[in-house]
């Protein structure tokens, strides 16, 4: 079944390629130019390995993630796959209505995005402005703020699991002990856990965006600031009228990448709490449904919904941030 679909996709692509090839040759003949046969053949041979791999590992997953959404595909039985229309989507909306796991996943993802996007970008911008001067030693500060980026998300999650450990020897609990506060179970706390994940994710990620902001800041001409200060503009006005407009394109890039990255959050809840309603996220839910419970069709339907929502939101972000000019 899967090979059959693969064959159909490959044949369709090959037909499209042939159509373009024939069109190109016809156009070339009209213009009295010729393609070198040897050159063309070697170009196709050079492209062949990449094309085959891209077909199997890049294009097919895209085609499947669209197609599976309308089937009842159970992971281990591809041959019994059946077309079931919009049933998966109805099931999703029913589950949201009943406040099932998907409902929690959506709420938690929203909380995470709303928390992490402003926090991480704000921190990154603040740090970039802070180290963006000619004083000695800012290089060391930069390294310090960038250090958490180097460690992976897996390491971050495990490290913070120890810091937030519920026993009284855990780092945060032992500090709270100085003030006589009894040990808390931060990560199993239904209210606070997702916010701790927000905090540690921003801590891990913001050094990266700081570097991007710094490269944006270094493109601003220094004489603009000198001129503005001669005109009597204070630091805040300089920031508002020189730095902000010049950073707009950098800012747009960072907002979109951080937003997209944040909405895909998965490793932190996976490693820190496993499947729990108070920390589950959409991506983690899709992973659990598709891999652990093997309901690929159900998982793919959610992925399709999310792709549509995400595409719409990034489009809005682009238009809004562009119009401010």
């Amino acid at each position: 079944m899967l090979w059959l679909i693969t064959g159909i996709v490959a044949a369709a692509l090959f037909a499209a390629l042939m159509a373009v090839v024939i069109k190109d040759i016809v156009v070339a003949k009209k213009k009295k130019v010729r393609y070198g046969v040897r050159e063309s053949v070697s170009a196709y041979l050079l492209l062949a390995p990449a094309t085959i791999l891209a077909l199997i590992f890049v294009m097919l997953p895209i085609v499947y993630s669209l197609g599976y959404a309308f089937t009842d595909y159970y992971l281990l039985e591809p041959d019994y796959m059946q077309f079931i229309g919009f049933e998966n989507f109805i099931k999703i909306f029913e589950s949201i209505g009943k406040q099932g796991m998907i409902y929690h996943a959506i709420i938690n993802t929203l909380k995470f995005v709303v928390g992490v996007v402003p926090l991480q970008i704000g921190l990154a911008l603040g740090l970039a402005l802070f180290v963006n001067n000619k004083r000695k030693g800012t290089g060391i500060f930069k390294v310090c703020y960038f250090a958490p980026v180097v460690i992976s998300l897996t390491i971050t999650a495990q490290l913070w699991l120890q810091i937030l450990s519920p026993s009284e020897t855990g780092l945060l609990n032992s500090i709270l002990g100085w003030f006589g506060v009894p040990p808390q179970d931060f990560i199993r706390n239904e209210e606070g856990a997702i916010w701790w994940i927000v905090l540690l994710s921003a801590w891990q990620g913001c050094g990266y965006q700081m570097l991007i902001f710094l490269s944006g800041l270094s493109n601003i001409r220094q004489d603009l600031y000198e001129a503005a200060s001669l005109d009597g503009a204070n630091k805040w006005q300089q920031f508002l009228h020189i730095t902000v407009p010049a950073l707009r394109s950098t800012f747009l890039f960072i907002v979109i990448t951080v937003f997209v990255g944040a909405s895909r959050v998965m490793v932190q809840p996976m490693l820190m709490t496993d499947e729990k309603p108070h920390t589950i996220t959409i991506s983690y839910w899709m992973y659990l449904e598709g891999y652990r419970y093997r309901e690929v069709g159900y998982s793919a339907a959610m992925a399709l919904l999310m792709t549509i929502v995400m595409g719409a939101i990034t489009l809005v972000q682009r238009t809004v941030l562009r119009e401010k000019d």
Partner: protein
Amino acid sequence: MLDENKTLDEQSAIESTQAVPQEETVETVATEEVAIQEKAVETVATQEVAIQEEAVADAVEVEQFFSQEKEAVEKKAERSPNVKVRKCLKAIGYYTAGTIMSLIFLFPLLYMLATSTKTEQQYAFDAGSLMMFLPNVTDLATAFGNYANVITGYGMWQYTINTILYAAVIIVLNIIINGLAGYAMAKFNFPGKGFFSFIILFLIVVPVETSIIPLYSIVNQMLHLTDSNMTAPLAIILPASISIFNIFLFMQFFEGIPKEYEEAARIDGAGTLRIFFSMILPLSKPIVATVATFCFIGTWNDYVWPTMVLPYPEEGMWPLWNIQAGLTSVKSATGVTTGEIMASLVVASVPIFIVYVVAQKYIVQGFGSAGLKM
């Protein structure tokens, strides 16, 4: 190189071309990042900003002329002791704030390093005092004991070797496969080229949410790579060897290499593959290094996919897991101490830290490309 009887002139010519693309990379990578992400939108915005800036700068020059007197007054004021004191205080404030923020950012890492040298008793004893952030220096045997346990006892050395092998194969395949495709797109004229460039752009721009489950269904149910231990590593290597974005990076870079060098080599009788491996790749060291660095970081830090496709380690067998997956097996081992967990985290962080230090230049050049994946 290509010709053994190369004259000095030719040699210097090649050297000078080597210099040119190297200088261009920073620019090309930066512009590519913009081009892909925002394309027309961005260029228009930046152009507008540039025009505005120029206009402001012109007006400023005129005003600067008139306000030189004012500047002179200000300079006099700077020399007075009062201003000096204020400047000094400002500097002290700046460095104090910077240090406090550095400590806020570093304390989890300090805690990780310090705890990794302690036994469970020392860890419990130090909890609640500032000793939490200081390593155990009194007893060096236990300080290194945790590391010895983690590396040999829990098999971290095996996971490390696995990851380095995976990364090495992925880097080589990635550069050859995507490099050849980029070379064909940049330097060859053939019917159907428009089709390929459309596909490349389409795949870069289209956002797809988690195609990881469909990818798993392909690897597991179509190719059956996860069925045996012999083929399981292919499930890590093959999907990571193709990167549309890297094809795009290579394509952009190769377009900057002058056609004359290739033609000269062709007249000397070199074939296409020989030109690619002994001329194009050596001329493209910066982009090759950027791609290799990001491949390594990606392979080293990958966690979810390896745990999905690689078999769970069995007793008495060489495990196939990579380092991040290995970390979770250390954590869930019976009788593991907090110090050992922290030591395993340090072991997994050190190599990637070295990569960041050594390949700093290429990481800054390529951070736009990783921004896409995040």
